[in-house]
């Protein structure tokens, strides 16, 4: 392989190297005979990506149902449930079993937990009195390769569970996923990270490595650097509107498991199309990382090229025509189909986004990022709420204001909340409580550093275990020091003339040249400095919890240096904008970035996770 070239199809090789994880194993054969399979909605898309109907048939799955909160109609004697280890799912199964019992009906039940079983689930089964009636199994499905360089654990609930509820049960799951990658591509040479969760994951993973040491062979590591980052290190980036194509598509249509449903307004027919968005899509792969303003021009150029290729068939003789039809036509048709879909999507996005409001929205965001015209922005947000533009958008803007300004001034804090409650209902009182706890929407309180809870806890802190807990509380009520960090790292590029979005000069292009994503900047800096040296002040402002290898492995081999592969791990999700930014950085510096995330996130998903809505 030539030096400096990105490794093709990297993430898909997880599948090649670890076939046991996928497909065939997904319904363990311990429940022979015909059965009905109930799948939790969250697992439908991942399963869809790796298994197909014939595999299900091989496992004698008769009918397929979605786990929903309503009585089931299955007549099968065997029921199989493929679920996440959640208490509500256990209650769902318990209701079914108990209903069957009441009717004197006997069936076999099997629960398959993905990716692992939790003790609390068994406990609920026990409390519901059905522990003896069901058998349990695990489907150790940790990683879903969404793209050549993107691996997702598809655990969207991780964000709320960990950062809001302080629930650490997914830590070991993530550590195991890392260990899986380590065993496939490892050993990881240098591991850096920042964030409390990152640190815990790192420690648990180290233990796993030590336990399994001995069976790993000394190999040449394929991944030279690993960088772990907590989402709460950088909320700002995740809260911004996305303007690169892939991010926009996600914000507009919501990409699920690497595929998107384009509705009738995009397909300009009465049908919806499900489109896989990855590097295999030749059209998409060329525009995904582009700023939206370039996309349309690119697509029309592409359309013209396509037309010329079609036009070639005029003046062909029969033999050439035969060749054309058998060899090129199919590809052209495929490309044509994709092209028209993306053009449709663009039009749809333009319709929604390029109106005056969107420009104003971006303008407000940019002034929030830069810290100018705060009053004006606040009024803009207020109007946004008053006019009921969009509940999650309004909330997002409030959070962005709070995170960039280190909390809202008390007057705004109260009035914006009141406005919001009037617009969207009183249950959001709880939403605001959540946002406060997680530190996304807070009130400026100068002088006061410790909350009441914290001081109480710190009094009780006696042993070293509790030391970690104070950290936990610090992070729950963490202060954002965005302004200071932004200055230190130069996140707002100096504007001299128009920012050329066609030929971007830095990662800021993913936000129209207004802001370099903090998360990506940290990664860039640490890689450049081979550690945290010189970043002490930033680390302090980010509330610490950084780590680096005690002895960085020096790349003695310049060839190896040239094709550094870096695994960027986002705990709590990463956005497509961040991925685009790092892909850009990789191209600039000759790195190859691989992404591992608990889930793909976006501002809307972050807000949804905080919402306390009526069920």
């Amino acid at each position, binding site marked *: 392989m030539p030096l400096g070239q990105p490794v093709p199809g990297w993430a898909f090789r997880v599948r090649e190297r670890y076939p046991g994880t996928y497909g065939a194993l997904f319904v363990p054969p311990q429940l022979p005979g015909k059965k009905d399979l109930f799948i939790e909605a969250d697992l439908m898309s991942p399963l869809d990506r790796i298994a197909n109907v014939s595999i299900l048939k091989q496992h004698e799955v008769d009918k397929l149902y979605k786990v929903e909160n309503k009585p089931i109609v299955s007549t099968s004697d065997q029921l199989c449930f493929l679920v996440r280890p959640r208490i509500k799912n256990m209650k769902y199964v318990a209701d079914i079993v108990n209903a069957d019992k009441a009717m004197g009906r006997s069936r076999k039940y099997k629960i398959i937990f993905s990716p692992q079983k939790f*003790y609390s689930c068994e*406990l609920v089964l026990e409390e519901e009195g059905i522990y003896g009636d069901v058998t349990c199994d695990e489907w150790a499905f940790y990683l879903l390769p969404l793209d050549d360089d993107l691996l997702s654990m598809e655990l969207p609930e991780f964000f709320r569970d960990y950062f809001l509820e302080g*629930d650490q049960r997914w830590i*070991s799951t993530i550590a195991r996923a890392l260990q899986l990658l380590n065993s496939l591509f490892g050993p990881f040479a240098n591991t850096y990270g920042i964030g409390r969760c990152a640190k815990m994951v790192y420690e648990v993973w180290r233990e796993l490595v030590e336990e399994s040491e001995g069976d790993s062979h000394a190999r040449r590591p394929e991944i030279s650097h690993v960088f772990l980052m907590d989402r709460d290190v950088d909320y700002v980036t995740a809260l911004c509107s996305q303007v690169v194509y892939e991010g926009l598509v996600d914000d507009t249509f919501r990409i699920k498991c690497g595929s998107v449903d384009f509705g009738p307004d995009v397909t300009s027919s009465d049908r919806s199309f499900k489109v896989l968005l990855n590097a295999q899509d030749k059209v998409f792969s060329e525009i995904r990382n582009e700023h939206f303003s370039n996309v349309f021009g690119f697509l029309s150029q592409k359309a013209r090229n396509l037309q010329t290729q079609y036009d070639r068939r005029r003046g062909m003789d029969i033999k050439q025509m035969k060749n054309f039809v058998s060899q090129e036509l199919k590809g052209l048709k495929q490309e044509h189909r994709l092209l028209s879909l993306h053009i449709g999507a663009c039009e749809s996005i333009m319709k929604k986004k390029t109106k005056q409001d969107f420009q104003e929205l971006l303008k407000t965001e940019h002034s929030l990022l830069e810290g100018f015209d705060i009053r004006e922005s606040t009024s803009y947000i207020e109007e946004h709420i*008053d006019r009921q533009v969009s509940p999650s958008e309004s909330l997002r803007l409030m959070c962005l204001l709070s995170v960039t300004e280190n909390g809202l001034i008390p007057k705004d804090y109260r009035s914006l909340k009141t406005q919001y409650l009037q*617009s969207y*209902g009183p249950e959001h009182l709880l939403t605001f409580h959540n946002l406060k706890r997680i530190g996304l929407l807070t009130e400026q309180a100068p002088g006061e550093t410790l909350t009441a809870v914290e001081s109480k806890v710190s009094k009780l802190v006696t042993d070293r275990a509790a030391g970690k807990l104070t950290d936990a509380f610090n992070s729950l009520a963490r202060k954002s020091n965005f302004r200071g960090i932004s200055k230190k790292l130069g996140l707002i590029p100096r504007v001299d003339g128009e920012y050329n979005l066609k030929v971007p000069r830095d990662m800021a292009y993913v936000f129209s040249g207004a802001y370099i994503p903090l998360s990506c900047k940290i990664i860039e800096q640490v890689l450049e400095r081979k550690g945290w040296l010189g970043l002490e002040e930033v680390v302090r402002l980010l509330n610490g919890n950084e780590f680096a290898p005690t002895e960085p492995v020096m790349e003695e081999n310049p060839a190896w240096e040239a094709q550094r592969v870096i695994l960027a791990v986002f705990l709590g999700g990463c956005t497509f904008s961040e991925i685009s930014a790092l892909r850009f950085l990789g191209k600039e510096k000759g790195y190859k970035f691989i992404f591992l995330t608990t889930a793909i996130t976006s501002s809307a998903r972050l807000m949804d996770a905080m919402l306390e809505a009526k*069920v």
Partner: protein
Amino acid sequence: MGFIAGLGLAEGMALELTGKEERVIALRSLTSPLVCLLCCRKFELYSMAWNLKEDLRDCLVAAAPYGGPIALMKNNFRKEKSPGSRPLLEIYSASGVPLASVLWKSGQVVQLGWTASEDLLCIQEDGTVLIYNLFCEFKRHFSMGNEVLQNHVREAKVFHTEYGTGVAILTGAHRFSLTTNIDDLKLRRMPEVPGLQKLPSCWAVLSQDRVTIILLAVGQDLYLLDNTSCSVVTPPGISPHAGAYVQMAVSFNYCYLALFTDTGSIWMGTSSLKEKLGEFSCDFRTPPRQMVWCTRPRSKQRAVVAAWDRRLLVAGKSKECIQFILDEDSYLVPELDGVRIFSRTTHEFLHEIPEASEEIFKIASMAPGALLLEAQREYEKQSQKADEYLREIKDQNLLAEAVRQCIEAAGYEHEPETQKSLLRAASFGKCFLDKFPPESFVRTCRDLRVLNAIRDYQIGIPLTFAQYKQLTIEVLLDRLVLRRLYPLAIKICEYLRLSEFQGVSRILAHWACYKVQQKDKSDEEVAHAINQKLGDTPGISYSEIAARAYDCGRTELAIKVLEYEPRSGEQVPLLLKMKKSQLALNKAIESGDTDLVYTVVLHLKNELNRGTFFMTLQKQPVALSLYRQFCKHQELETLKDLYNQDDDHQELGNFHVHSSYSSEKRIEGRVAALQNAVDEYYKAKNEFAAKATEDQIKLLRMQRRLQDELDKPYVDYSLHDTVYGLILDGNHKRAEQLYRDFRIPDKRFWWLKIGALAEREDWEEMEKFSKSKKSPVGYLPFVEICMKHHNRHEAKKYAARVTPEQRVKAHILVRELDQAADAAIEHKNENEMNLVLSKCTAATDSSVVEKINRAKAQILKK
């Protein structure tokens, strides 16, 4: 030193191997010379280190197979009981080195026996079986059942099958009871033998096809007892005049049976009683004190060894036998490949001579091995004969065979010198071979080294090569560990290069488990010593060691040792068992493994009362948050209690708000829940939340009233939506009232009202409203909303009223580009002009474009 007694050798001739002293005299009756029918040899293993006061015959004796330990207890069973004198239970190694002794304080012991794992079974008269380890430490006991208790044990036998170690009992009521595995006790009472009035003269336990049965003899009758029935059997081919059976022996592998009758006849056959192997008549009528089989795996030869007080007889298939004189009381221990014979002074091994040894050591043997041995000896003497011998072997193309023979024979030899000379010969022979695979030679050298080490007098495990192979190295290591010979075991592991996990680690762990039982050392000392020695050797489980310490009642030590355990998952269960729940909780939290935390939390929930449980949780936020998660789904009331306990009014308020819309359905219930929330919020000093909730109560009541009066759903709408709904329905009065009551900001109200009016297409009302007072949102929103509802006509009205700054925008909205251009030109604002330009299309708006361009040009000029 060894001595070979072989038929086929000249009478009285003994082959001297190394010139050492021979001390065993063989008496041989020889009928047909030159036919080798029975070859066996006896050599000394040890001269016993013990200093026995009693005769062996006065003792209960039990010796474990595979060179195992010997247990002795002075047998006062048959003698009169003297209450003052208690017997001494003593345990020795096979070389007679005392291992331990203990004064026997329990009941009358009938029989001693060893289990397969070298524990001592002491079977008492009352049917209780006490289990001791090698060091006379009591382990546990079990009973053979009530029937045995009532009728007493008259005789007992310990036997080994694939199920484990079994015990068979003959009671005073002439009934048999047995268990096949003392570790999984299932008592079986065997069926009655019809008409049995006295104790059988002899009996034995047989194992056939994995069924354990008992064979017993009463006079001239043989009975077979299986689980359900009792049947009379007759050995095939036994002479009718054989007489009454007085002694029987079953071979080590349960394949063969020997019966001794009171006419001095020994019948030998398969234990299935289907085949006769031979019969032998001897001169003795008295039953032998002991009779055992002397066999060897994969050998055709079988012999029975019978011992009387001063005489040992080895009888085979043929008519002749070998007899040895015994100087003193001896005890026979059947082994896999021979018989061990020990007395007060010596310990010997009697076995059939293996073929390879016989080939080599037979007098005047011309076997290739013998020649090779000779060649090597000559070579050492630097004699040319070496070459002759070698040539002779090579001529027959038998050198490889010779080497193989020497290697094999070396394995059978007990004396290191003999082993060495044979191995030297093999090594010598190998030099002349091209491709002799080295493995067998290397392996034999290694194994012999291990065997010689453990055969050492101090260690006293006289294993033969065959026994060693049968036992496996793992079991041998276990036995060394059992004898607490940790250094030797570790040396062996290192020498054999066993993996740490299998070898050294395991032994160190055992050592540590033993160490924690040493009560004379302080907890710190022991914990430190253990960590020093073990460090982080792979495969060491500190938790197992800690568990052992806890079993010995050393909780503090256990906790100290656990500190070294790197895996929290291993620490926590033991800590819970030791009732150190607090510590367990800390460890679980440290581990980051929430399953573990849950385990501890739920354990605590059951163990502690509610108050203490909550208090404990308060100190552990991680555990608390986990438990809350659980309660949120599973026990809502507990959740409330938790908040109450902690005076967490904010969370209590949230809890009530949540239940106001999730669990309460009636308005009254919801209002009550919200009222509770208000109270809690005030207590939490969260005035904002309290006020907001109060407003919600007000709104809810209002909505109910509206719903009743207007017969339309209003409940559960937000304030905004409620007002919007009212306006949409034309209830302007009520909308105004809500606007005032809830102090809705003017801006919001205007936005909301024009939105609703436009949706109603009530343009008249909108115009009225726009004139009611100066709009706080300006008039551009009017333009926008009219255009949104495609009413350009109305929109134009408001476009005229917007502020000058917004005029361009407004005109563009209503598509009056010309006016927009005018306004922009008036403002001299280039941006605005460009904005207008961007909306122009060449076809229709050329005049506008021209106008703007002109204006722009003018600005440029200036």
